[in-house]
Every structure is written in C-alpha cells, then in structure tokens.
C-alpha cells in the first residue's frame, strides 16, 4: 500500500484530496490529510466581517465535510517534515507517516511579531489585522462605535495573501463611513511598501485613481520599521512618521512554522517551488500548492484553483515514471469589492498584467475586467457559494486554468 500524504487541509489541500481520490486506486493508494485546525474558513469573507456584512458564522464550516470518504483525516499538529527520509512526524500519538508522494498545502499566516511594536498594548484594541477571524471580529466591534479620526491601513511587507484585499478594505471602509454619515470625520491613509496602489502598472494606475476619487491618500514606498503605541504612530525606515487613531495592519506574511522547523523554507518560510511544474525545487516527490510555496504569483485561493489541474497532472505523470510536463502560467483572478454594491475583476498571469476587457466570455462577460460594475459585485458575493459547493470539490468551473487573451484589450 502506498501513501499519498497532504499536509494542510485548507483550500489547496482539500482540492487536491478530492481530485486525487478520483485518480488513485484505493487498493493501491491511501490518501491522508493532516491539519491542526478543525475549521475551514472561507478567507475571502474575512474582509466583510469588520463592516458587519458577514458575521463569523458566515465564513466557517467543518473541514471534514469537504473530504471524500476514502480519505483519512488526521487532526494533529505537524511536528516535523523529514523529506530526505520521506516521512512526517505528527504530535498526536507521536505518529510517524512515511509517504510515497507528499503535497504541501500548509498555507501562509500573518506574523505580526516581525514588526517591532505591532503586538504591543494596542493589538486588537486600536491596532487590528483582518486576515484572521479574531482580528476581523475584534475590528468589527471597534468600528461599530467608532466616531471617526485617522484610519491608517498599512501593508508591512510583500508578498501578502490576496494583494487586492487591502484595496477592498479601503473601498469598503469609505462606503461604510459614508453610510454612517461620518465619512467627513474620517481621514483614510494607505501606507504601502509598493510604489503605487497595486503591483502591476495598468491596474495600479486605475486603482490609484479610484482611491484618489474616494479621497483616500496613498503614502507609497512606505516600509514600516516600527509601531509606536505611546505616540500612536507608525514609522518607516526612511524616517517618515504617520500618526493614527486606528491602525489596520496587514502584517508580514510567512509560511507555516513547520516549514521553518523542518528547514524547508526560504527567508519567509515559503517552500522553494518550480513556478511552472509546482514541484519542490529540492525533492522529487514533494509538491507544493497555493500560498505555501514561493511561486511569484498571488497568494490567493483562485491561484490554488488554477494550480490544481497542473499539479495533479504532473503528480500522475510522475507516478508513471514520466517527467512533469504541465506548466502553470501564474494565472490569478480576483474580484475587487469597490463599495456601493460595485466591484472590479482582474485576470492576469506571470507575463500578462491585468487588462481591461470582458470575462469569461470574450465580448460578453458577464464580468467586466479592470472596470467597476454591479455584475462584478454580484460575482464576488456569489463566489462564496461557488467556493463551498464547487471549488473545494475540484469540480469543473466555467473558466480555464490557463489565462486567455481572448476578450482582453491591450
């Protein structure tokens, strides 16, 4: 009996488990998923919690509900991965699993401890993250009674999980304060290490104009050095200082601690991964899906989804003694909530930046690329259902894994 081991049972791990269970003969292969957390969070939903659009209950379901029956789920912390020995040590029952094929889907996490002062007295009092259920919920309680002041949103360091989420937060905050009638009492500042609103030029300029139109100021090239709680200010390495009443932070994102413990990660604990084949750069039978790896694309669920077909095909090829062939092109697409029941959609890959156009059907849509529309907003809101009911199961979706230029305008 051979073992197909998946570490991490979130978006990537669940999709791989579902897809592989159709391909592997149960008489020959055993599929095991290990995760230390029982809950599956719909992470795109965290964005809506601070503004009371979603409640915590709207974004959580038991992980077990999403694995096929022939998959063994082990709820345990992972102590150590020993890829040279093809084995993984678990905390629970001190169990050791020896594997034939390993898929790493341990994701990424916020590491607020990387920024001096961020975790001091104000953490979850007037300094919040919204990338965890705890942070998003604490922030919703704060915002409920906030009378206004200076809101600073800071991205500590790239890369981050879902690079558009900070922009969405700003757009939704603008809308939220409008609705409450206190927009004039809130100053909104976006302090980012990037030279502009986004990483890619076309999108950066369009999104930058939108921020300006909503009277949100960008403090670009801002690399945070420290948070000073007594002065209520953040400071950058080039000695700029921004005072805040409310600081919303997207802290440094890092890979899982077990990756670091096992000596498998880069300086941010992401696993070095071949960006086209999705195989570990070091171990032939180790594969990496989603934000656990260092592939230079968005650390988002849509990317994990687009990686799925490639990684599965390459794993199956390897099992037949063939070299990996399928190529991941870095395809990502993201709905960007822009407030007032509108949204934007962007679609891009390693080589092609987000461009205007229609998606997924060229000329028709129904979604508009790089442009605000009500349909895009409804796409985003419907996506939660699609996520739970189709995406996690690895079902066919109405769009291709490889990005297409059809329907895009240069």
């Amino acid at each position, binding site marked *: 009996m051979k073992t197909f081991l998946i570490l991490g049972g979130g978006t990537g791990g669940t999709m791989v488990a579902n897809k592989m269970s159709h391909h592997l003969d149960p008489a020959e292969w055993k599929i095991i998923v290990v995760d230390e957390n029982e809950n599956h969070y719909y992470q795109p939903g965290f964005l809506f919690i601070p503004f009371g659009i979603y409640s915590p209950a709207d974004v959580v379901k038991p992980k077990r509900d999403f694995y096929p029956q022939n998959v063994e789920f082990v709820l345990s912390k992972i102590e150590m991965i020993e890829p040279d020995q093809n084995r993984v040590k678990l905390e629970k029952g001190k169990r050791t699993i020896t594997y034939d094929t390993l898929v790493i889907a341990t994701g990424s996490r916020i590491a607020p401890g990387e920024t001096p002062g961020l975790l001091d007295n104000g953490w979850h009092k007037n300094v919040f993250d919204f990338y965890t259920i705890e942070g998003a919920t604490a922030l919703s309680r704060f915002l409920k009674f906030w009378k206004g002041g200076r809101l600073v949103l800071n991205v500590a360091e790239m*890369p981050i999980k879902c690079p558009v989420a900070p922009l969405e937060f700003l757009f939704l905050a603008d809308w939220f304060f409008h609705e409450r009638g206190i927009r004039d009492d809130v100053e909104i500042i976006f302090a980012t290490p990037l030279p502009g609103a986004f990483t890619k030029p076309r999108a950066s300029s369009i999104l930058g104009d939108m921020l300006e139109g909503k009277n949100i100021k960008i403090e670009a090239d801002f690399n945070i050095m420290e948070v000073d709680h007594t002065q209520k200010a953040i400071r950058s*390495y080039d000695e700029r200082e921004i005072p805040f009443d409310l600081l919303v932070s997207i802290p440094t994102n890092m890979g899982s601690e077990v990756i670091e413990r096992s000596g498998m990660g880069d300086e*941010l604990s992401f696993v070095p991964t071949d960006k086209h084949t999705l195989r570990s750069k070091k171990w032939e039978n180790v594969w990496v899906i989603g934000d656990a790896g260092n592939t230079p694309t968005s650390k988002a669920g849509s990317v994990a989804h687009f990686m799925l077909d490639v990684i599965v095909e390459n794993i199956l090829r390897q099992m037949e003694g063939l070299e990996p062939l399928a190529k991941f092109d*870095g395809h990502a697409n993201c709905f960007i909530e822009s407030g007032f029941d509108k949204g934007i959609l962007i679609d891009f890959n390693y080589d092609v930046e987000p461009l205007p156009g229609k998606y997924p059907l060229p000329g028709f849509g129904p979604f508009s690329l790089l442009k605000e529309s009500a349909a895009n907003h409804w796409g985003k809101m419907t996506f939660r259902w699609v996520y739970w009911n189709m995406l996690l199961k690895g079902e066919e979706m109405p769009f291709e894994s490889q990005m297409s230029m059809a329907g895009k305008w240069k």
Partner: protein
Amino acid sequence: MTNPILENVEFDDDGFMIDPNAWTAEIGEAIAAREELPLTDRHWVVINFARQEFDANDEAPTLRRITKTTDVDTKELYKLFPGGPAKKAAMVAGLGKPTGCI
C-alpha cells in the same frame, strides 16, 4: 556627459541594465556615480551578495534575504541606498528592476 564605461551598456527607461551578465564592478561604480551614490565597503557587501544570489538563483535577493544573510541590517540598508534599497541596490548591481511581488 555619459561616463565612457557606460557608453556600450544597454539600459531600460528606468536606468536598469538590460543584460545583467554584462555587468562588471567598474560598470557598477559608474552606475553608482551616475546616481550620485558614492560606494563604500558596506555598499559592496550588499552588491556582492546580490550578484552572488543572482548567479545562484537567477534573481535579485529580497531585502529580507539580504538582512538575514549578511551583517547589514534594514536600517543600514536604507542609509546606504537612500530612496529605496531594493531598487537602488539592484540598479548598481546591474540586475533588472525588482518586479515586486504580486
């Protein structure tokens, strides 16, 4: 007045070398002079490390990798390369403009 050393070197619109493999230490000095950045031994710690990383991995190291691997900390990096160490160090080391992550 262009430095003669840079005359046959190709640059993109932002002043980054197009072919990193054509880089030499003299070219590095000349780019730094163009940017009005006098180089010290500490600059060279960073530049040499960036070159070494590029040779090994085909990409410029991130700031975090520089500060984790060399004895130059982030604060010093900003002092050495005012106006954005990632960009400036890559420019002097003849590496392409850092793409930034996505």
